Each structure stands twice: as C-alpha cells, then as structure tokens.
C-alpha cells in the first residue's frame, strides 16, 4: 500500500469531503422540508392530498435514485430545467430523501397516543394548535433516531452524484485513480473519510436524542 501517495493526495480528498458534507447538509435540509410536507399530505383530511402524498412516496422510493438524478440532470434541459451538477445533486437527492423521511415522520406522528389529541381537543384547542403544541413536540423527540437513520443513508447516497460529475469524495477518488492507477488506496482514503463523517453524525444524533428525550 502506497502510504506516501495517500498522504500526498490527502489534502485534496479533505477538500472534497467538505463538498460531501455541504451536499449532505443541503440534501438533509431539503429532504426534511419535503418530508414534513409529505407527511402532512399523507395525514391530510382531504383524500386527494393524501393520494398525492402517497404517490410522491411510491414514485421516489420505487425508482433508483440514480435514475432520478439522471432524469433531472440530463433530461431536465429537454423540458426547460437547467441546473448545474451540484444543484441537480442537491435537488435530486433531497427530493428522494424526502420520500423516505415522509414515511419516517408519518410513523412518528401516528405513534403518538390518540388520547393526547383527544385531551387537547377536549380542552378546546383547534386541530392546528393540537398539532403544534401537543403532537409535534412529542413526535419530534421520537423522530431523532429514525431520522438519524435517514441521514446516514442520505450521506452514503451522496456518492451517487459522482455520476453527474459533482466533485465530491467519490468523484475525487475516481479522478485520482486516473492519474495514479492506485484504486485500492484512493477508494480506501475516500471510504475512511466517509466513515469519519458518518461516525461523527451518528454521535451527534445520539447526543441530540439523549438531550431531547423526555426523562
């Protein structure tokens, strides 16, 4: 194993790791927004809205994320959507992650005991007051861990955007293989950096979970 080479290219990989982190943060943010909207739709009183929510989940969980990215990035211009690779990556992965988060968030909300909603409505709170004062604060606490799982998957899924030439960790590894012919070292380096990112995120999630848990 060529340790010397790994140390030499390491700073470039570190820079690429920051792109992966930025990509993950933006994707997670967009995913969370889509997930909240999707879960609200899935739980709407209107059947048409519920249907749209269910359709969103089926379509984006039912097709490969890579195909979704390709449609957006390569197919987009044909229907008037011009995005650079990074934008396409964030939007494509964010919408995809949102479909998974929709189901996670919905699960959290429906797991709150029915009696909680009843008690709040009995006091005279409106639907919306009940949701944001009683249901969401409890669901949010329950959701830290399962959303942490979504986050873990999402970080790994950012590797897919190498296929549309976003210069993140995986793409960087591939590029250095072209000049060094050392795939083992290059992918190992990328893998170690992914692991560090995911480990740190996992610790963060566990910390947050402990902090917000009710006793």
């Amino acid at each position, binding site marked *: 194993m060529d340790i010397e080479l790994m140390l030499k290219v390491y700073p470039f990989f570190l820079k690429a790791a920051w792109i992966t982190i930025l990509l993950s943060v933006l994707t997670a943010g967009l995913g969370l927004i889509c997930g909240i909207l999707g879960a609200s739709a899935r739980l709407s009183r209107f059947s048409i809205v519920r249907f749209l929510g269910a359709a969103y989940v089926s379509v984006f969980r039912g097709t490969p994320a890579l195909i979704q990215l390709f449609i957006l990035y390569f197919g987009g211009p044909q229907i008037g959507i011009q995005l650079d690779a990074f934008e396409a990556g964030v939007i494509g992965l964010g919408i995809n992650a949102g479909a998974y988060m929709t189901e996670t968030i919905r699960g959290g909300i429906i797991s709150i*005991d029915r*009696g*909680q909603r*009843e*008690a*709040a*409505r*009995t*006091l*005279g*709170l*409106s*639907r919306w*007051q009940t949701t944001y*004062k*009683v249901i969401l*604060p*409890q669901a949010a*606490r329950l959701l830290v861990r399962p959303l942490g799982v979504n986050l873990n998957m999402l970080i790994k899924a950012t590797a897919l955007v190498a296929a549309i030439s976003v210069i993140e960790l995986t793409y960087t590894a591939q590029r250095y293989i072209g000049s060094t012919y050392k795939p083992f070292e290059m992918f190992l380096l990328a893998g170690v950096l992914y692991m560090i990112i995911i480990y740190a995120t996992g610790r963060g999630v566990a910390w947050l979970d402990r902090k917000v848990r*009710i*006793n």
Partner: protein
Amino acid sequence: MTEHTHFVEIRHAQKSYGALEVLKDISLNVERGQIVGIIGSSGSGKSTLLRAINDLDPLTGGEVWLDGIQVNKSLPHRQYEKHINAMRQQIGMVFQHFNLFPHMTVRENVAMAPKLLKEISKEEANQLAAEQLDHVGMLERIDYYPSQLSGGQKQRVAIARALAMKPKLMLFDEATSALDPELVEEVNQVMKKLAEEHMTMIIVTHEMDFAASVCDRVLFMDKGVVVEEGPPEVVLENPSQKRTREFLRKHIEGAS
C-alpha cells in the same frame, strides 16, 4: 322549535359503527349543579355516550344541548370547528388514562389551554394553574413532569387541567379505573370537593359506593339503552329492573 329548559339535554342520541348500534335512542336531562352517574357493563355504550356530549365521538343521530346551545349542530366545516372548540372550552373531560402531556411540566399542562384560548397573560395563566393545582392538592408538584407522578397524582393534575378552563360541565370517564386501589381515594376526594362546590358532573364509574355517595341520579345502561334511572338509593340498592339487579349482583361478586 322546541324549548331547551334543561342545562344539559341529550335528545334521541343514536350512534352506530357500521351495523353495530352502540347507542339506541338515549335521552337524558341534567340540571345545573346536578351530578349524574352512569353505570353498566363493559361495552354497554357509557363512554360513547359521554364522548358524544363534547362531540369527541360524533352521534349518528340526535342532539346534544348545553345551556341553551346545541353542541352538535350542523355547520360548514370551518364554522363547526370554531363552534365546537368554543363549546369544548365549557366542557371539561377527565379520562381513564389521564392523557397528561408528557413533554410539559405539571404547570404547563394546566396553563397551556388558558394561555392559548383565553385572553390572559402568561403570568395570569400560570397563576391560574397554581390556583387550580392548589385546589386538587398538587401545588408542591407544579414543576414536576407527569412521569414523576403517581397515578392518583396524575389524575388530580388532569382534573386541574380541565378545571383551569372554568368549564360549566365536567365529564369523567372511569377516572379511577386505572389506579391502584390505594390511590383511588385521593381522586374521589377531589371529585367530592367539586360536588360540594356544585359543579355539574356526569360520571361514568364502576364504583358503586362512590356513585351512591356523590350522585343525585344514577343511570344503568345496557346494550346501548338506559335500562333504569333514578336516585342512587333506588337504582343501586333497590332496582326495579331485572337486568340492573343482575348487573349489581355480578358486580358485587366480581368485586369481592
């Protein structure tokens, strides 16, 4: 138009779940300050009737009136929501399993609804919460979380939470059924105190002694109908209906 001269008026209440008829044409009047007990075996429709009063389980037929206003009147969705929220503020409800909000302290549990729904400041709402908690003997635990309380204490907080909205009517659905026997009395004491203060109450209970001591009137329900109704010394001690006698006999056997 019929006149509504009773404080609470249930007229021809009917409720079905598909083919299952759970309430069959029940009518009931309760006067201001009266305390009505509802007894009956499991599945007879006691909870369904109680929960119809604040429209938690909407009736499929019939009317509920409180103090001259129809609770379950038919209105377009938005208007109905406004109407029912206003009505529910006047009807306190206490559940078997307390349903306290676990993410809030005792104070927040009690102060939240007044803070949101009444035009009072945060300080006034907290003051109100303290008063109500004092009333049920829970002032010392005001900064605790529900998980740090015993069942009896939880139920007393739940009563204070309902009282903080200054309801005209209180509904109790087996408030002591989930409690360890030694914790029942502290909750019964609070309910007796409310009775002395002339709170109008409808109480679903399995405790015949308690019903006998606080209720002005007792209803025995079976299979969705009111079989017998009258003063507790009649319904509980000298019932005229065979079904009531059977229920009480089984109940005594089950309790001993």
